[in-house]
């Protein structure tokens, strides 16, 4: 709930609503509305181009797909959503919203909203599992930070890091078949307890969504009937609906790519974004970058694109290698190197510790906002239905 979002949004909303009222009372000329639509498009373009440029131009800012960056992305989603509502809904005669093609496009958008809610929930569960990884990394930090460094602590760190790296590598293998959960459920007897202690796969660290639910399928369904409005529609209300849908699809896709969640096979396929529209350019740029990362991920078979997780894996691997060759008391130079890596790992843990919970809360905020918007649109549709229906 960053105050900046609220401010921006309220001033914009205020402006639009005042203007709208004036326009309406003056027996609305379409010019004002057209201006609003263009402004909305411009803002969307600006917001996403900020997100894009922050990853390339300013090294001090949050890296692409880092927790901080994702939080910014969600902020932008919330802002866009508020503007969208202001443009499409506020002060408008319900009858306008029910006219074709909106009578078809609006329910489509609301359906996407529902699917987005599930993605939000899946990602929230994913974050919960990432917290478990964080705990493993913290063990390694706790073990390797103090000096002198003994064999025991090194072994301790190695064990935790092995669990960490294994959990990160095994998502896609275990995932998909329901056997994954079965297996993790059945451990516990003395015999096989050793193998799956604390849960070997990422799956066993995380809660599951509904059976057969698949993030990739949901996102695919969200984008499948997404087509840019053409001809006369391109200047009407169909346009902001299309923009909002695109933003929603893009943000959900990004979230699912960054944070491990149930069934992501096929997430790498390209989203059908229109190359010719100006506002979509930054989004396309971001998508290309993320898709690139995703390809790499698929090759390696690691869990998430979350920048912190990727770093964690790299540092973790390095420290495992170190731990394997460690002999007490260790060479000073090597220990200094370790110190740097441990500091980095501690830094990642700190970022996660500070960032994951607010991120979870923010996703929940998105969830509630989307629910509310959907309800409001349904209400408008209801009203319009009542007005047009030939009731007694």
């Amino acid at each position: 709930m960053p105050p900046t979002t609220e401010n921006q949004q309220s001033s914009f909303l205020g402006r639009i609503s005042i203007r709208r009222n004036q326009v309406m009372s003056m027996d609305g000329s379409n010019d004002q509305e057209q201006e609003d639509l263009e402004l909305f498009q411009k803002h969307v373009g600006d917001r996403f181009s900020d997100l894009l440029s922050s990853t390339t131009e300013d090294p001090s800012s949050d890296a692409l797909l880092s927790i901080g960056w994702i939080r910014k992305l969600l902020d932008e989603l919330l802002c866009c959503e508020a503007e969208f509502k202001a443009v499409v809904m506020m002060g408008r005669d319900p009858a306008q919203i029910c006219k074709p093609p909106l009578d078809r496009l609006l329910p489509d958008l609301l359906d996407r909203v529902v699917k987005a809610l599930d993605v939000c929930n899946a990602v929230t569960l994913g974050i919960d599992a990432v917290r478990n990884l964080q705990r493993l990394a913290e063990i390694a930090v706790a073990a390797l930070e103090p000096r002198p460094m003994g064999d025991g602590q090194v072994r301790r760190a190695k064990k935790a890091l092995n669990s960490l790296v294994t959990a990160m590598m095994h998502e896609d293998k275990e995932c998909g078949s329901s056997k994954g959960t079965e297996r993790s459920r059945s451990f516990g007897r003395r015999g096989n307890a050793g193998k799956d202690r604390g849960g070997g796969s990422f799956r066993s660290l995380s809660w599951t969504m509904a059976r057969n639910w698949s993030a990739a399928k949901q996102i695919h369904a969200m984008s499948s009937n997404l087509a840019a409005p053409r001809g006369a529609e391109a200047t009407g209300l169909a346009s902001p609906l299309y923009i909002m849908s695109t933003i929603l699809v893009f943000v959900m896709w990004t979230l699912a790519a960054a944070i491990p969640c149930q069934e992501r096979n096929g997430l790498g396929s390209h989203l059908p974004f229109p190359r010719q529209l100006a506002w979509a350019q930054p989004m396309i740029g971001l998508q290309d970058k993320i898709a690139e990362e995703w390809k790499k991920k698929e090759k390696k078979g690691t869990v998430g694109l979350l920048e912190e997780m990727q770093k964690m894996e790299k540092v973790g691997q390095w420290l495992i290698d170190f731990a394997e060759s460690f002999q007490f008391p260790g060479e000073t130079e090597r220990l200094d190197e370790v110190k740097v890596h441990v500091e980095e790992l501690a830094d990642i843990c700190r970022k996660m510790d500070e960032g994951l919970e607010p991120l979870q809360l923010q996703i929940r905020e998105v969830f509630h906002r989307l629910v509310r918007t959907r309800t409001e649109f349904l209400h408008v549709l209801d009203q319009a239905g009542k007005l047009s229906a030939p009731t007694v």
Partner: protein
Amino acid sequence: MEKNIDDHSNTFPHKDEENNTNANNTPHSLSPKTEENAKEAKSDGENEKANDLDHVKGEPEEGDKEEKENEDVLTFEVTPETPPPNLEKVSEDIDQFLATPHENNNNNVSDNEEKIPEFVDKFLDLVEEKMARYKSCEKKWGETVEEDSSFLEDVNRVSKLMKLLSIMLTEFQSREEKEEEKEGEEEKKGEEENEKEKEKEKEKEKELQEKHAKKDNSILFNRVDAIQQRAMSYLEEEFHLLMEESRVENKPEPNGAHDSKGKNVATPESSENEPIETPMDFPGFKDEAITNLNKIAREMLFAGYDSECCHVYIVSRKHSFGDGLHKLGYERISIDEVQRMQWESLEREIPTWINTFKECATVWFPGERKLVASIFSEDPSMADTLYTNLTRVVVFQLLNFAESVAMAKRAAEKLFKSLDMYETLRDTIPNLEKLFPKDIVDEIKAEMTSAKNRLGEVAVLIFCELENSIKNDNGKTPVAGGAIHPLTRYIINYLRLSCEYKDTLEEVFREHSKIERSDSTSRPRYENENQHSNEKENESPFTGQLTRVMELLDTNLEGKAKLYKEVPLSCIFMMNNGRYIVQKIKSSTEFYQVMGETWYRKRSTELRTYHKNYQIETWGKILNCLSPKGLNDNNGKVPKPALKERFKTFNTLFDEIHKTQSTWVMHDEQLKSELRVSISSLVIPAYRSFLGRFSQYLDPGRQTEKYIKFQAEDIETYIDELFDGNPNHGTMARRRA
């Protein structure tokens, strides 16, 4: 038990032997036996370390000498005369050693204090040996409580030693650094003064000694560190097993009483106390297991291995909760799926959800909190965090289902299940303070309240949509026979059921009817609303809405009544429907309360009016026929043709009425008989007296037969056939023949 005694008897002499051999050796060397054990204990990559230790063995003689020299200064003493130390003795010594204050006065440290007594090594040997036996499964955890506790005590000593050693080493380090600085300064000053030179020499000597000691200590440190890690790793495994076993035990056992641990259970009655598959059993840990887990957790926390402990705990409990939810029949359904589900299938999920939710709120969460608090009794805030992490996800998932039901397409039939869910949430919210730690209560409360409110809003909307369903019911075909209209049945039964939820609906209406939702972000504007509703203060919005629905129904029914061509039939229609409504209301206390006595009286009066109207409309003409008026001329003579006409008219009219009205319907038996009685009492006496007075004027025989078709008794019979909804009563003439 016997086996344990054997264990002991094997252990003690064996130890003595070791100590004897140790007496001849350097204290640091491991007896071959222990060494073997230690090696056994080392898994995989451990062997390198064993080599390290071997390598180390011979070196620290110098240090040993010093130790011996300084023994008298130490606050404890290991005298060779005392019986050779077993683990207990060594443990005592260690305890004493650890209990001695070791804070150093920074700069001025006496050498002695850095020396670690030889029995430390002995102690470590013994711990390793013990651990090896546990690890090789020669001894199992939980076999004897005393053994386990003494092992934990040893582990505790190891942790303390570890802490002590690392403090010592750090101080050493810092002192060394300082001295290096000092040295540097001195070198700058030059080496003019011999005295200083001497001093320096001395210092160097001291330094050398210290360095040895340091090396010595750091080797010991590494050993303790490794032992601690192995011990912790073992405890972690045991902790995990205990967690999992308790969970497994809570599942129904196909073999009945078989103890899944395969161990001798110390308290056999505990298995009897554990009725299988009782939900109340959650989380199903035996006291013994909890005590054990607590002890292990305490040592792991003390050793700084808290994260491992937490990790094992949370992963295990997560699976346990997953299993539990599954067992309750609760299945996660995505929001998207809920929107697509048929109401019939979704409806079935709701009682399961309610059951699960209540189970969680009343049994599982309190049980879980107790469990985590008893296992992590050393660190309540950690216990709270673990509990929060675990339950928060469960709560959110459960709430998501509530949200998705609230989002589903509204339909009248969903009202009651939505209210059931609403009530479940509402009743849980006041208990949240007790259920959750302070820092999370607000968040959970907000989420739960939001889900509750959404369900409440939906309930209000659904209820208000009843208005539409009445308004939209405007078919032009009247119901045959003036019977109860399906709309009446539907609405009244719906309202009656709603009144069973009266309190909840009133609450929901109070909270949500004001919500102005056409405008995006704005919430209710209470001030304006209040001004308006001041006059209606004492009427609850729900009652108001219900009354409105009833009024709408009345209007609708009146419209429907007009569809009948015959006025008496529309009266019958109104009576039927009115009676149905009144009866339904009277038989439900809640409904009656909501509608109020005044309303009820008014409706009863209305019914009587319809009754009267019906009588006038139907029987008025008949009574006119039977009136003596117009049949007496001034001379007291009765004009025969007029009389004949009267009889003829009566017969036709009555026949007609019988024919049509026996097909009409009066559902309510009581009302039917009341109606018949009132008709009889109206018609029969009039007919009887008409007959009595005028039948004499007809010629007996053919004429009488032709004009007097009914005897008074016949009239009664035919009246009793009215409103049966039976078209077969048909024409009476045929039957009479």
